[in-house]
């Protein structure tokens, strides 16, 4: 779960990390009020869950409350990469002497958390040469000891006995504490800025592990899903929208879903989306999942099931339920069905006159043909 910048900064502040003075607002008058409270120049930042909002005009400066109000009016209601802006963060405008980069995430290859730091932060961090990027893997059983933080600061090229150096050592340790205690997949500060003798988190990017949300009830909840994604999630399934428009895909498992998409594209088809119903989804949920796909008006629905935990009779039953409830399918349905309880499933499909394929490639080819009007 991605957190808005202002939420991440609230979290930082809870743990004692220095952040700019400021507050989240949702209307221009509030923006003016916060600007008045802060005094002096402020920055008004759109709160969206994607990057590059600055380039899209989603960050503006103002020297007084009136200016803040005007800027807020301008930004609220903007659309950035398709996302409407409903929330703003109004903050003191920092004096920025230097921009650093700092993050902690999990490195799957190393099977360990990794601290990434650079003395050259800001928007161009991804383009910095390797030698300016410090990567330090953290032994999970050892944790973030002070000596590691000190050594990273040394590697960044900062002296340890200056106010800046000491603050960064502290920030690294606190950032790791947040990372662990809040089950984060990512905590990122870019830029972390030198502002006179202070070191301040000028931005925040925090992603909480969805799988750990059950024990992170204290955190605010951010809904990132579209209506369709949410409907699928409520069934315990995952839905992904794709660029194409022709073929809706349902398959059971991430790998086989990818393999199905690859096969469809191999035959020249364009998948519109896919729904992964792996892990033994029952008859009712599978039916609802099919309704979701039909509701999206593809040219054809391709169901590709290799039954393991998933039972073929459940899937076939769901297909039959939808067929009977609707008195037929709104668009053609192609199904490949093998594995656990295969015969029982086939029998159910026969009752409604649907024939199942034995092989993925045959089903996929048929679906592509239909989508191209070649069937």
């Amino acid at each position: 779960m991605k957190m808005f910048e202002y939420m991440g900064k609230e979290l930082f502040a809870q743990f004692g990390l220095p952040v700019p003075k400021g507050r989240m607002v949702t209307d221009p008058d509030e923006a003016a009020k916060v600007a008045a409270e802060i005094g002096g120049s402020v920055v008004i930042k759109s709160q969206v869950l994607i990057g590059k909002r600055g380039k899209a005009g989603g960050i503006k400066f103002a020297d007084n409350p009136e200016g803040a109000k005007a800027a807020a009016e301008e930004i609220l209601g903007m659309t950035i990469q398709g996302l409407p802006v409903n929330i703003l963060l109004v903050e003191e405008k920092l004096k920025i002497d230097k921009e650093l980069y700092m993050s902690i995430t999990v490195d799957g290859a190393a099977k360990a958390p990794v601290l990434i730091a650079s003395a050259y932060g800001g928007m161009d961090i991804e383009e910095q040469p390797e030698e300016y990027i410090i990567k330090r893997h953290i032994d999970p059983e050892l944790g973030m000891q002070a000596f590691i933080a000190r050594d990273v600061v040394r590697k960044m090229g900062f002296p340890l006995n200056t106010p800046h150096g000491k603050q960064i050592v502290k920030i690294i340790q606190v950032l790791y504490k947040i990372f662990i205690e809040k089950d984060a997949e990512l905590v990122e500060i870019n830029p972390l800025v030198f502002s006179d003798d202070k070191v301040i988190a000028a931005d925040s990017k925090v992603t909480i592990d969805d799988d750990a949300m059950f024990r992170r009830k204290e955190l605010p909840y951010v809904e990132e899903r579209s209506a369709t994604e949410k409907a699928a999630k409520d069934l315990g399934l995952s839905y992904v929208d794709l660029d194409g428009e022709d073929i809706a895909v349902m398959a059971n498992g991430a790998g086989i879903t990818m393999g199905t998409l690859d096969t469809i594209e191999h035959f020249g088809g364009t998948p519109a989306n896919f729904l992964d119903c792996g892990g033994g989804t029952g008859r009712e949920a599978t039916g609802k999942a099919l309704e979701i796909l039909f509701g999206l008006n593809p040219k054809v629905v391709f169901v590709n099931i290799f039954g393991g935990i998933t039972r073929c009779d459940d899937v076939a039953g769901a297909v039959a339920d939808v067929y009977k409830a609707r008195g037929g399918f709104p668009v053609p349905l192609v199904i490949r069905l093998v594995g656990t309880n295969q015969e029982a499933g086939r029998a159910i499909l026969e009752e409604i006159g649907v024939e199942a394929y034995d092989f993925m490639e045959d089903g996929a080819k048929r679906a592509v043909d239909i989508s191209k009007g070649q069937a």
Partner: protein
Amino acid sequence: MAIIIDENTNVLVQGITGNQGVFHTKQMLAYGTKIVAGVTPGKGGNVVEGVPVYNSVREACENHRIDASVLFIPAPFTKDAAFESLEAGVGVVVVVTEGVPVHDETAIVAYAKRKGAIVLGPNTFGIVSSGKCKMGIPPNQYFVEGNVGVVARSGTLTYEITGSLTANGLGQSTVVGMGGDRVVGLTFIDVLRMFEKDPQTEAVVLIGEIGGNAEETASEYIKEMTKPVVAFIAGKSAPPGKRMGHAGAIIERGKGTYKGKVEALTEAGAKVAALPFEVPAIVKEVLGK
């Protein structure tokens, strides 16, 4: 032979009294797996499908030799259960559970390393030494003994490919599910090394995915292998996954693409199938059948 588990492996089932535990215990027994004990705290003294249930892994170990454990445990309790087996000295721990928090996964893998144990998963279908021992959830009928080693991350695609191997007369030595999550116990290279040493295995099928750099790293080792490797990489047409801020980009630095993986594997001498159903023919080819 086969790798990791075989017909002599004494298996423990943790969470044996749950729905999944009971169902898959039955399936595993039907496959021939030597399940000697189960554990569910508070349910000690019960019997599931003829298997005695204990209150703790230590109690099970006091009554049986335990070589390997498979977990059917809800995600919030998976770390504790995996730690329990590892602490008791169990050498192979198979974590089927999906949705385990990533920090828990990291902790499990770190502790396993310290204890010198093998962890498969989390989020793995398990492992089958075909004809000898199955731990996990794959459907029994597609796994027939033979000479092809299979190593993969995701389940159903593996059944798909293994099923087509079997349909084409190509049995398997061992089919290893490393797990589909971001942090899992083994990497391709670990399993390839084992297959290389296993006398039963004559060729290896590697089922990879876009993202990460495990396939690229494995390619370095494939160069040294004497046994042929056939690969399929899923996700050629998949959309880019969610990015982990700048950090993800910095770690990957352009690695992890379909193209990069295929190139690395090909250069290392592996044959890469463009589609899943092409795998059996290529395996036959490399085996000279």
